[in-house]
Every structure is written in structure tokens, then in C-alpha cells.
């Protein structure tokens, strides 16, 4: 038996340490890129303009993050909301439908969703946003259903029998116990969104995909590399952030 919190949390602490390291490395990369012209000129001597300068890299990161954050926030609200609704008695008739939709929807590649949204919404930020939200809902909704199903029935029964309201049982028992599974779904969704947001530059949204797309069109491998480095770094930092969050949510399991 061990109730000492300091000993019970090595996993959280090491996750936080990795997150800090990755974030610092990403910050360094972002700060160094504008001054990296000599490096890329040396790497790609045949290129006339080896450093992407149409946008400021920091602006691109912020635009990319903004697109991902806004779409993921919407996807979380809708996905978790729908997952909760169909696992309540009042929404159980839509359960099958939600399961089918999330399973089928995920067989669609995100690029296809993006391509389909252009004729409906047009070019720019909004089709990208719409496609990211739609695609992002699926893993979140799926994991919310699975997470809520996985909470121990005895705990729900006891909560109800002790006089908790349906809302109490949901917010105090079911959601906290399902949180690791739900957050795992959000993590998948956000990771996919970070990469899809890069492709979103093809439909006219500004993101870290912009140097990649422009580089591909203009045969400028240096631009592609610069965009790719930043997207990868960003995805890594965000993913480590989720890892720390998951460790925090499951703290009670250790010790």
C-alpha cells in the first residue's frame, strides 16, 4: 500500500518533463528558422530563394494552431455531447446510428472530406474549418461512447442508490472515469487535425501547410522541409501535452 502522492506520480512527472523539453526545442526551432537562410542555401545550393518568406513562421504556427484549436473545440463539444446523449436512456434509439456513422466516417480519408467541402462552402478558412470539425467528431464520439460504457456498473448503481441525480452520476462518476478514454479520442482527433490542417492550404486556408504546398508547386524542397519540420514539431508537442494530461487523469490508479 502506498498513498504517498510524490511516489505515485513518476509517470506524470516524466511526461511533464518530456513536454517541457519538446516545447523548448520547438520554440528554439521557431526562433532559429528566420535566420536559417545560410543553412538551407548550403543544403539546397540550386535554389534561388531557399527560405520561405511569404509569411512569418510564427504567424503560420499561430494560424495553424488557431484552425486546429477552433475546429477541435467544436468537435469536442459535438462529439462528447453526442456520445453522452446516445448513452442516456433518452437518446439510446440513436445509439446504433451514431456507431454506424462514426465507424463509416473514419473509413473516409480526411483529404476527401476536405475536397468535398470546397464545392459546398467554397475556398478559404471555412471549408477547412468545416472539414476538420466533421472529421474530428468521429474518434471523439466513438471514444466517448466506449468510455462511458466502460465505467463500472456497480459504481453507477451505487451512485444512484445513494441519492445522486442523473447529472451527478454523469459528471462526478461516469465522465471522470471515462475521461482517459475520451481524452485518448480527442488526442487522435487533434493529431489528425494537425496534419489535415496542413493539407487545408490546398483549399486556401493559411497554415503550416502553406510553405509545403507552395514548395511542392514551385519545386522548392527547402520550403517543404521548413513547413514539414514545423508541423511535425507542433504535432509532437501537442501529443506530449496529451500524454501528460492522460497521466494526470489516471493518477488515482497508481500507488
Amino acid at each position: 500500500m502506498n498513498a504517498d502522492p510524490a511516489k505515485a506520480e513518476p509517470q506524470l512527472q516524466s511526461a511533464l518533463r518530456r513536454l517541457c523539453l519538446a516545447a523548448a526545442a520547438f520554440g528554439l526551432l521557431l526562433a532559429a528558422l528566420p535566420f536559417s537562410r545560410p543553412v538551407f542555401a548550403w543544403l539546397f545550393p540550386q535554389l534561388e530563394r531557399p527560405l520561405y518568406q511569404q509569411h512569418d513562421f510564427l504567424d503560420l504556427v499561430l494560424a495553424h494552431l488557431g484552425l486546429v484549436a477552433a475546429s477541435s473545440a467544436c468537435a469536442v463539444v459535438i462529439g462528447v455531447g453526442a456520445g453522452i446523449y446516445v448513452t442516456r436512456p433518452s437518446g439510446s434509439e440513436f445509439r446504433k446510428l451514431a456507431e454506424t456513422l462514426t465507424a463509416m466516417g473514419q473509413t473516409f480519408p480526411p483529404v476527401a472530406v476536405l475536397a468535398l467541402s470546397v464545392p459546398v462552402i467554397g475556398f478559404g478558412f471555412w471549408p477547412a474549418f468545416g472539414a476538420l470539425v466533421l472529421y474530428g467528431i468521429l474518434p471523439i464520439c466513438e471514444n466517448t461512447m466506449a468510455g462511458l460504457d466502460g465505467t463500472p456498473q456497480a459504481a453507477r448503481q451505487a451512485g444512484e442508490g445513494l441519492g445522486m441525480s442523473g447529472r451527478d452520476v454523469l459528471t462526478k462518476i461516469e465522465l471522470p472515469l471515462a475521461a482517459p478514454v475520451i481524452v485518448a479520442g480527442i488526442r487522435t482527433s487533434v493529431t489528425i487535425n494537425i496534419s489535415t490542417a496542413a493539407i487545408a492550404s490546398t483549399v486556401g486556408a493559411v497554415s503550416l501547410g502553406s510553405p509545403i504546398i507552395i514548395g511542392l508547386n514551385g519545386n522548392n524542397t527547402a520550403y517543404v522541409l521548413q513547413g514539414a519540420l514545423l508541423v511535425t514539431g507542433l504535432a509532437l508537442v501537442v501529443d506530449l501535452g496529451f500524454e501528460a494530461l492522460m497521466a494526470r487523469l489516471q493518477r488515482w490508479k497508481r500507488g
Partner: protein
Amino acid sequence: MISFRSITKSYDGLTVIRNLDLEIAKGEFCVLIGASGSGKSTILKMINRLVEHTSGEIRFAGAEIRSFRPEIIRRRMGYAIQSVGLFPHWTIEDNIATVPRLLGWDEARIDGRIGELLTLLDMDAARFRKAYPHQLSGGQQQRIGVARALAADPDVLLMDEPFGALDPITRDGLQTEIRRIHAETGKTIVFVTHDMDEALKLATRVVVLDKGEIVQAATPRDLLNAPANAFVRDFLGKDDYGLKLLLVERVGDHMRRGEISNGCGTISETDNLRNALSRLVTLKGDRLSVIDRAGQATGTLHLVDMVS
């Protein structure tokens, strides 16, 4: 305290409880016993409205239970179940504090109450308060389950086969514990089991159920001495019927008070004669020294007196 009047419960036309009348008095330890499908658990769950009755009237503290909101009535009744259902992500103290927090007690009062309950259930507060349920054994978890049920000092304690999943030794310990708690607090307890020994050991009244109807409701002694029909007789068992008779007799009622013996085994005054007999057989003796709760010798129990 609780009365069932002409209660019927059906699920989709299938009647599981038929025209049931039952009066549970304040301070009673009422054990509902029957085979699976006898409706014992349904009856228990109708009291705190986890199951709604189809027709008839259930009154609690003078009012029809449907005049209360389900949450309100449940907070006034402790509830313990076989699967315990501790909240795995909450510490032991938070688990115990569930109902007091729902009732809005202030934290100082809750804190004091947690200490009291851990002491009542013989759990080391320093060791368990901040622990999580998965760090406890099954028996310890059920002790916390009982503490949680008692936390807000409810009028009634509802227990649905609470010791059914425990090993015999742990179960025996908890049965002794709950008897003592009943004696000390005078709470009204409604307890469901399918184990006749458990029923006879705990109950002030045993209610035997079959197919949703009451076959017999009597004190353990009356049940043993005058079973209503063949069904009850079968339920009481044939081979160990005599041992069940010993189970409902207290050592204190058969001892020779004041006669102090040395050099033999000891038994508690409040223990039952079956345990006394078991001890005598083990020790190959014909008498036991009887002690009170403080461990003081108060008399002697002779083998010959146990059957008279």
C-alpha cells in the same frame, strides 16, 4: 417505519411481486430471504425507488414514498450492495463523504463523521483515509461500503446481499460487525440474502419469500421451531437443522453465570451456541469459560446445558 400495502410489481405483464403486505418496524433487522427470482431484491429496491411498484402503496415514515423525490428518499436511506460499488477514482474518505456532501454538510462535520465511521468499522483511519479503493481487500472495501451507507446517519439501512461475494472468514467478521452496529445504533435494517445461516444469525425477523409472495415472516427461533410449510422446512435444511437451532441461541442465555472455570477455552457471551459447540469439538472439552466484551470471565458454558 416502512409498510408495504397490497404491493404488486409486474414487468411487461409478468408479475414478480403479488399483493404483498409487509410492515417493517423501527429498529427491526428484517432479513428478506429466498431463492433467485423470489423477488427479494425487487422488494428492497422498491423501498428507495430504484424500482417503481406497479400498484399498491409503500409508506415510509408515514408518507407514500412517491411523495418524495427519489434522490431525497435515497439520501435518507443507506444503501449497500454486493458489488460494493465504491467510486474507484475517489479516496476512501471522499467515498464515505458521498451522501453528507450531497446533503450539504460542512467539511468539519464530514471530517469528524468519517473518523467516527472508520472507528465504528474497525478501520485504521491514518492508513485508509487517503487510500484508493483498489488498494483495499474485498472485505475492507465492503466495510467502507457499509461506512458510506451509514455516513449521513440514515433512518434506514438497505443492504442487498452485501456479504455475498466475500470469503467465509471475512463474511463472518462482517456479520458480527453489522450485528454489533445494529445493537449499538438501533437502526432499521432491511437485508437481502439467499443464505439461511446468515439470515438466522442476523435477523430479528426473517421474511421467507417464494415466487413474489411471503411464505413466512417470523423471528429466527419461531421460524426454526414452527416452519410454516415444506418449502420453509426445505430451506432450513435437513442435515444441519440442529446446528441452525444452535445458531439462534446466545451463549449468555445458557451459561452458568458466576461459575468461573480455568484451563479451558473461552467464548464471548454474545456469541452463538454453534460457534461454542465448534470450539468445544476443536478443543475436545466439555466446558468453555465465558467472557464479556471487556474480556472479563463472567461464567462457564457446559456442553450439557447447550441442548437443554
